[in-house]
């Protein structure tokens, strides 16, 4: 069913009691051509584009819990393409372009709001690095604007510009960046994939991979054996666990990242701001709560909950940037398990197992990448070649030395 003002009026006449299910509750068939493991944003987007762009049939998405129950449902919803390096910026700019048309493409309101993202800088040296990054963005066909202090005041007057220790000298603004409704992204891709015939199978946990003569043949699941010619893994923090089933060792560690939302406020902040002297990013949701986050807890974790010292740390940084946050109460916090790669950049690649494809290493930048990740992973699975903008996101770059280390932290995943 196409969503439109007419369908809305028609359903309103029937008291909204006749809306069809958004997707079927599919039961697994004995075999598929392509099985995507992971019913989150990336997995659902991959299935959608496999069916839509490549016209493929017999596709299933397996999800151990409910659709969108992982990191797509637990993030700070920021969408941006403000990277420096050749391997990253074209990919994220491609993603931003997909975001701009995503609601129309999916016939589902993902509430993409290009409200701008501002990175604050606090010294001459930091300004120089931001100018360099802004120029790199412009050269890659993206947008970037350098703001002076008055420019920052114009967009975000609540920021403590005269902070005694870290005065704000200005900011790097990407006007086309912004936020989106995270759950709607999962639901929109799920609905789109389902309407193109993809089976979305929930509560189906993968317990093993059947591999014969170096080629994948199918999967063992909690709902029994499912045959598959091609299997794509898009399972974020659980990547190492699944890869172990195929004896693959990966340059990945799993870390917990927390995020927070305050009580609801009247309109207060209509852009996204990140601090330059501590890891802190904040925006206001349409419900009025301030949504913000900071660093990883810092040690390997598969627990979807964070520690209290980090809550305090993030709150301190936030109050340093916007002192009036002190008056607010944090309503909720949550933790998600990040697939931290060894250079802070993602991996979309084949593996040494025939028919087994890998989509991982999103660190805590996975949300903004959702459409491009799905597009490029679908391209890889359909054609067995990397998409142009994902050419650098290879698994063998760690051996060959072609790292994409945006932050320059080296092989220390908890610092990326």
């Amino acid at each position, binding site marked *: 069913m196409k969503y439109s003002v007419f369908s809305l009026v028609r359903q309103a006449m029937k008291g909204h009691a006749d809306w069809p299910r958004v997707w079927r509750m599919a039961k697994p068939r004995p075999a598929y051509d392509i099985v995507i493991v992971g019913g989150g944003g990336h997995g659902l987007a991959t299935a959608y584009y496999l069916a839509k762009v490549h016209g493929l049939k017999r596709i299933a998405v397996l999800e151990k819990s409910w659709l969108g129950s992982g990191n797509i449902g637990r993030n700070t919803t920021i969408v941006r393409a403000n990277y420096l390096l050749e391997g990253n910026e074209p990919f994220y700019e491609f993603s931003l372009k997909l975001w701009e048309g995503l609601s129309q493409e999916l016939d589902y309101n993902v509430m993409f709001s290009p409200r701008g993202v501002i990175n604050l800088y606090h010294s001459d040296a930091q300004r120089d690095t931001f100018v360099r990054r802004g120029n790199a963005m412009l050269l890659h066909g993206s947008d970037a604007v350098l703001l002076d202090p008055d420019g920052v005041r114009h967009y975000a007057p609540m920021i403590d510009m005269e902070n005694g220790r870290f005065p704000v000298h200005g900011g790097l603004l990407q006007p086309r960046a912004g936020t989106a409704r995270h759950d709607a992204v999962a639901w929109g891709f799920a609905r789109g994939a389902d309407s193109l015939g993809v089976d979305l199978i929930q509560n189906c946990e993968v317990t093993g991979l059947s591999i014969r003569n170096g080629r994948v043949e199918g999967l063992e699941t909690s709902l029994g054996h499912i045959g598959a010619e091609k299997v794509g893994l898009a399972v974020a923090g659980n990547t*190492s666990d699944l890869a172990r089933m195929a004896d693959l*060792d990966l340059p990945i560690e799993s870390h917990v990242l927390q995020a927070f939302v305050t009580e609801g406020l009247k309109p207060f902040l209509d852009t996204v701001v990140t601090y330059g002297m501590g890891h802190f990013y904040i925006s206001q949701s349409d419900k009025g709560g301030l949504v913000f986050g900071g660093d990883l807890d810092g040690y*390997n*974790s598969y*627990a979807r909950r964070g*520690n209290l*010292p980090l809550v305090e740390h993030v709150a301190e940084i936030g109050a340093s940037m916007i002192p009036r946050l002190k008056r607010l109460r944090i309503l909720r916090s949550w933790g998600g398990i990040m697939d931290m790669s*060894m250079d802070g950049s993602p991996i979309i690649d084949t593996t040494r197992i025939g028919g087994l494809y890998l989509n991982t290493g999103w660190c805590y930048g996975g949300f903004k990448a959702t459409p491009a990740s799905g597009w490029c992973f679908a391209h890889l699975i359909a054609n067995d070649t990397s998409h142009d903008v994902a050419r650098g996101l290879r698994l063998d770059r*760690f051996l060959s030395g072609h790292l994409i280390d945006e932050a320059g932290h080296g092989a220390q995943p908890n610092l990326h």
Partner: protein
Amino acid sequence: MRINCPYCGERSIEEFTYRGDASVQRPSGDADLEAFFRYVYVRANPKGRIAEHWHHSGGCHAWLVVERDTLSHEIFSVRAAREPSGGGERGGGA
């Protein structure tokens, strides 16, 4: 989480800095590229028990080997990294 430092006793997690998996061993200098690649980049990333290096950076500056569960965050043992494994273990708080 609280870590029972063998020198200082039980202290809050805030006093410690994380280094990572303690099971990886630096290969000898004449090892091949593959061995160094595995040492620098490849991690087992277990869901469950892991031995890892922590630095008591806000305390005595000792390097520690902490055995911990990555799912429950329970700590099984803490020892100084300079001690050989299997000796001098002390229990830690979860």
